[in-house]
């Protein structure tokens, strides 16, 4: 394994860790659920992605696993992360944790799917 590759791997790891940390940190630091939602759902996803790339490289060059199988993990992650985020956001909205703007063109009551009941005075 050459130094260049090694340094590339370390860089990937560093970036990955950085984003993971940022994701978790923002989860802790920010004050509102919807703000927090941003950090983990993608900073972490990107972080894991970087770590996975590092892993692919590492295994490929260390000869323990020639196939870039970790890409599959990334693929799954990129599919599932939006699902989770979407659902969590919907859940939070259903608890009225944020004020959402009225939907343009659809009158004063925004008819979101599922939450088509009245939510004029959301709390908190």
């Amino acid at each position, binding site marked *: 394994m050459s130094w260049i590759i090694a340094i590339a791997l370390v860089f990937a790891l560093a970036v990955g860790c*950085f*984003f993971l940390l*940022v994701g978790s*940190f*923002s989860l802790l*630091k*920010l*004050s*509102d659920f*919807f*703000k927090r*939602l*941003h*950090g983990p*759902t*993608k*900073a972490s*996803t*990107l972080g894991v992605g970087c770590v996975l790339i590092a892993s692919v490289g590492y295994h490929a060059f260390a000869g323990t*696993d*020639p*196939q*870039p*199988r970790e*890409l*599959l993990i990334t693929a799954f992650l*990129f*599919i599932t*992360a*939006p699902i989770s*985020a*979407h659902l969590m*956001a*919907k859940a939070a*909205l259903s608890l009225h944790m*944020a*004020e*959402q*703007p009225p*939907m*343009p*063109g*659809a009158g004063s009551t*925004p*008819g*979101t*799917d599922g*939450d*088509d009941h009245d939510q004029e005075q959301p709390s908190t």
Partner: protein
Amino acid sequence: MNPTRTPWRKRWLPSPPLSVTVFCFWLLMNDAVTVGHALMALVLALAIPPFAARLDREFARIGRLGGVPRMAGVLALDIVRSNIVVALQVLGPERNITPGFIWVPLDIANIHGIAALTSIITLTPGTVSSSLSADRRHLLVHVLNLKDPDEVIRQIKARYEAPLMEIFP
């Protein structure tokens, strides 16, 4: 399922892209690419999609796939770039952040397209898609740092929705 006679291709190979995905998936998962694995992958590629396609509720069409690589490139770039921006925002003082919701009007009607757009919006830092209106004409997006709503909408429509409409007409 469908009482009308479906052409054999529809029945046995409902979704070629899916079959290709499964094929690649299998080869990728196994230790090595051998003839045996390839055969197995072929079998699965033929067997699984008809089974999975039963779940397909809307049978949306897939259009030209030519735009996919460019789209992927733009996406990767955006993800990395905006991630850094968001990281800086997060690490900076919180009062600089002004979050807000916006309703993004949608032109795309293909459900796969909408799904892809939602995913992309969520994966691009700074925005999380939170809800889809019942008529699927509007997408509720939460923006971490909302300075100019119209700019955000414009960006989304230009950068993501337009190419997606090509892929999923």
